[in-house]
């Protein structure tokens, strides 16, 4: 028997899209979480309704590392199509739970194999042949509970939570869960090293998807109008919003709503509705992904130039074009930062966690109204559609910043002299009036206008106006969320943003432990870049910008925004295969660029760490 590996492994369930395995997978995730062990779940699914292969990975990690782990420790092979390939890709010493007739044990001799006769077992617990396909999945949960020591009481609790009020379905699935566990107890002998042991690292914590967190944040931020158009991976955000708003923002007796959510005919209409609503004084938002952002480009220019607020959640996916619609990337950074023709600059907020999805939703509405322009919340599929554990969210008690909206008192204060685009306070931000308040009106237009809001094609009027817009953007630097900085006595700094954060945290630990390389870290949270960014870059000799796109988009943006030469020592670590970024690849890349050897050769120094195996790249 090998050395026990406790609370540090990944389970990968390979199934067929549409086979209803999601419930069974979430039950594993939740039951380990309930046992106090940090977990993360990542769904790698195809752009397809049913039939193509899909993988769900649960990672348990006692140290709290929740990024994707590249290596699979425990494979549940339920998909005939990929079973052979999946088994062949495993490292020696790993485990495979499989459907007995597939005879996967014949493929290799260096793995632990656990055959289970799924069809026979499911027939004994489910009389309805039509339901068997779904119930079958719960059998592997039962087997895993036995093999990995996941407590049955926690499995049952997780299962009941998953099914909610559907007691009959829950009972049926419980039968399958028990059948799996019983079969394993009677027929399977454990030969792999992986075990779950109760810890206390998740007490009080929650499991939530980024899109639900964003929706919740938007509700508490006081959103009143949401116009959206379905697109993966963003649809679950407005769908969650509909659920929350129906429950908490409508009068239970009359159904009268303090919000309007409308499914528009396309992304152009949805951003148009957002602009109309914001112009008339509502807190308005939409949610989309890259292709939708592209369609919104023309309106984004209008919003920038005519100075209309609005919030856009961009749940990024792999592009260009349709790309990989169900895979993750950070590929919209550059195009969104300058979305539209002419000289435009958009405000971007970049959440790394579900907690930040919640909080930045509120920042977004405040900043949009303060700066009278669009604010893009740059989430991604990994954050938006996967389950993340988190501390519970903090109740937002800050006062809504509705920005510079004129009322009668303010008009008087300004001496009755009001011009829609006048820079009264020297911060580049003008005052606006809202229709229906009795305040002076103005004519909003995307064509040239002077400080009074009148049509103008005068060169000086145009230039003064766009210079003021640049001044406004400068002001925004001190209002957007500041980066999170961790300095260190080292020459090497890492810059990351969004979901890369989790891999970076783990990668830094690997660099420190395996190679004695200390790193400083700056996590960007917004564009425009606050002054801390420039200062951080100048403090370290070598800077690595980690991002999930091919063209080093954030690095390009840093080059464009910072003084000439300031970024000469900035390098890139890029990951762009559609799968969530992992720490191992990152650490190896940095080591190689640092002129050191990658992990494969330092393996000896880290013997016993199940997370360290090889420097081989995905797909190689």
């Amino acid at each position, binding site marked *: 028997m090998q050395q026990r590996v406790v609370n540090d492994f990944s389970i990968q369930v390979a199934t067929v899209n549409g086979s209803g395995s999601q419930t069974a997978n979430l039950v594993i995730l939740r039951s380990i979480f309930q046992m106090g062990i940090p977990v993360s779940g990542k769904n790698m699914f195809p752009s397809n309704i049913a039939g193509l292969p899909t993988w769900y990975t649960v990672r348990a990690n006692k140290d709290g590392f929740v990024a994707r782990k590249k290596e699979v420790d425990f494979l549940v092979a339920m998909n005939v199509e990929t079973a052979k390939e999946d088994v062949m890709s495993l490292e020696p010493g790993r485990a495979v739970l499989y459907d007995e007739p597939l005879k996967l044990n014949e493929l290799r001799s260096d793995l632990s194999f656990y055959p289970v006769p799924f069809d026979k077992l499911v027939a004994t617990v489910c009389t309805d042949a039509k339901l068997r396909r779904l119930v079958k999945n719960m059998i592997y949960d039962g087997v895993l509970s036995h093999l990995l020591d996941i407590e049955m009481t926690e499995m049952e609790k997780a299962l009941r939570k998953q099914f909610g009020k559907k007691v009959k379905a829950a009972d049926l699935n419980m039968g399958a869960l028990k059948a799996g566990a019983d079969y394993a107890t009677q027929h399977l002998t454990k030969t792999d090293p992986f075990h779950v042991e109760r810890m206390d690292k998740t007490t009080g914590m929650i499991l939530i998807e980024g899109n639900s967190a964003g929706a919740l944040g938007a509700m508490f931020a006081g959103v009143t109008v949401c116009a959206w158009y379905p697109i993966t991976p963003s649809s679950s955000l407005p769908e969650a919003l509909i659920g929350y708003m129906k429950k908490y923002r409508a009068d239970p007796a009359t159904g009268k709503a303090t919000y309007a959510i409308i499914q528009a005919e396309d992304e152009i209409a949805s951003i*148009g509705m957002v602009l109309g609503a914001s112009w008339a004084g509502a807190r308005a938002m939409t949610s989309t992904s890259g292709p939708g952002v592209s369609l919104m480009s023309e309106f984004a220019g209008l919003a920038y130039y005519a100075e209309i607020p609005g919030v856009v959640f961009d749940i990024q996916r792999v592009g260009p074009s349709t790309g990989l619609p169900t895979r993750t990337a950070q590929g919209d950074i550059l195009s969104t930062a300058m979305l539209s023709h002419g000289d435009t600059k958009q405000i971007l907020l970049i959440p790394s966690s579900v907690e930040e999805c919640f909080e930045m939703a509120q920042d977004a509405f405040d900043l949009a109204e303060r700066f009278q322009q669009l604010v893009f919340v740059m989430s991604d599929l990994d954050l938006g559609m996967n389950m993340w554990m988190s501390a519970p969210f903090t109740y937002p008690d800050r006062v809504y910043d509705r920005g510079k909206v004129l009322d009668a008192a303010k008009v008087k204060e300004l001496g009755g002299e009001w011009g829609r685009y006048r820079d009264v306070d020297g911060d580049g931000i003008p005052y606006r009036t809202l229709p229906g308040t009795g305040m002076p009106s103005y004519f909003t237009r995307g064509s040239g206008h002077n400080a009074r809001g009148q049509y103008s094609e005068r060169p000086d009027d145009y230039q003064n106006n766009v210079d003021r817009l640049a001044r406004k953007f400068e002001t925004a630097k001190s209002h957007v969320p500041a980066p999170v900085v961790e300095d260190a006595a080292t020459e090497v700094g890492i810059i990351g943003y969004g979901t890369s954060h989790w891999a970076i945290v783990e990668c830094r630990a690997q660099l420190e432990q395996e190679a004695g390389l200390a790193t400083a870290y700056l996590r960007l949270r917004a564009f425009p870049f606050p002054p801390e960014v420039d200062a951080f870059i100048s403090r370290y000799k070598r800077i690595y910008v980690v991002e999930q796109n091919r063209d080093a988009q954030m690095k390009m943006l840093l080059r464009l925004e910072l003084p000439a030469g300031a970024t000469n020592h900035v390098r890139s670590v890029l990951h762009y295969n559609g799968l969530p970024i992992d720490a191992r690849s990152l650490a190896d890349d940095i080591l190689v660029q640092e002129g050191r050897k990658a992990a494969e050769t330092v393996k000896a120094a880290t013997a016993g760490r199940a997370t360290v195996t090889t420097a081989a790249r995905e797909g190689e």
Partner: protein
Amino acid sequence: MEPKKNRIGLEITPYRGGKTTLCAGCGHNAISERIIDAFFEMGIQPRDVLKLSGIGCSSKTPAYFLGEAHGFNSVHGRMPSVGTGALLANRKMIAIGISGDGDTGAIGIGQFVHLMRRNVPIVYIIEDNGCYGLTKGQFSPTADVGSTQKNGQPNDLPPIDTCMMAVQLGASFVARSFSGDKRQLLAILKAAIAHRGTAMIDVLSPCVTFNDHEGSTKSYAYVKEHDEPSGEVNFVPFFEDITVDYDAGTTTAVTMHDGSRLYLKKVAEDYKPTDKLAAMRLMHETHSRGEFATGVLYIESDKDDLLTQMNLVDTPLAFLPPESLRPGKGVLEAVMEEHR
């Protein structure tokens, strides 16, 4: 002599706008004049009005009427979405959207379709001259087959009949008029303002610079000759005596949601403006004769508009106080508990 005031005590000045920059004699200017008259005579506070438009000659016109109303000149063809959003934010406002035949029939046809479908409460006017004026006279999708451009080039494609589309799509008020017919256009505009729902008005408005020549079916001369009124339109607002004597045999009275009445004196005995099929037949028949049926072609005065369907609170969403927007701490705690 003291200047004339309307029922809310305003003179005509706040109903006027900036000086027009369109060509002298442009039909669009005549429409702006009728809009000014209609809002003045209805006694509507200009500050309660939203003026919306897309891009094009027509879309410039909101700058030329109701100077005290908030206006939004958006992007080409996408005014319907902007208007929809604005009304969701503030259901108390009266919205008037000005579009053109290119703005509506070409780039904006998608949004036009869905505006009608949703029955958004907006007075949607198409200033229809069958050509693109601002880009110097190209055909628009409402140009008739055989109609020629100024340079003689004929149009081969069939026109889109925006009124027919609107009826089919669910607009609850569909009318066609002619910028030169002051009396009819004014009555239609007033009825449209009183209507709750999409009031779609296609106004034939000849382009004096690019499309007012022989060979155009949207020239002044052609439209004047081929205007086929479906009857006489009269509108009596709710604040006026409504016991007017109309010939019962040939007149239909439609009560609007606010109690105003629209009287339609019919030419054809069997024409019912509340009958979709009749409206479609009339449009087909007149069009096949090369004529334009004008008047209120279709009306459904009691159909729910979008804002009613959405069951919004009475206070405009834009002005709800923070306490009605942010649920209490207990709600967040409850949601957090669900995720534990």
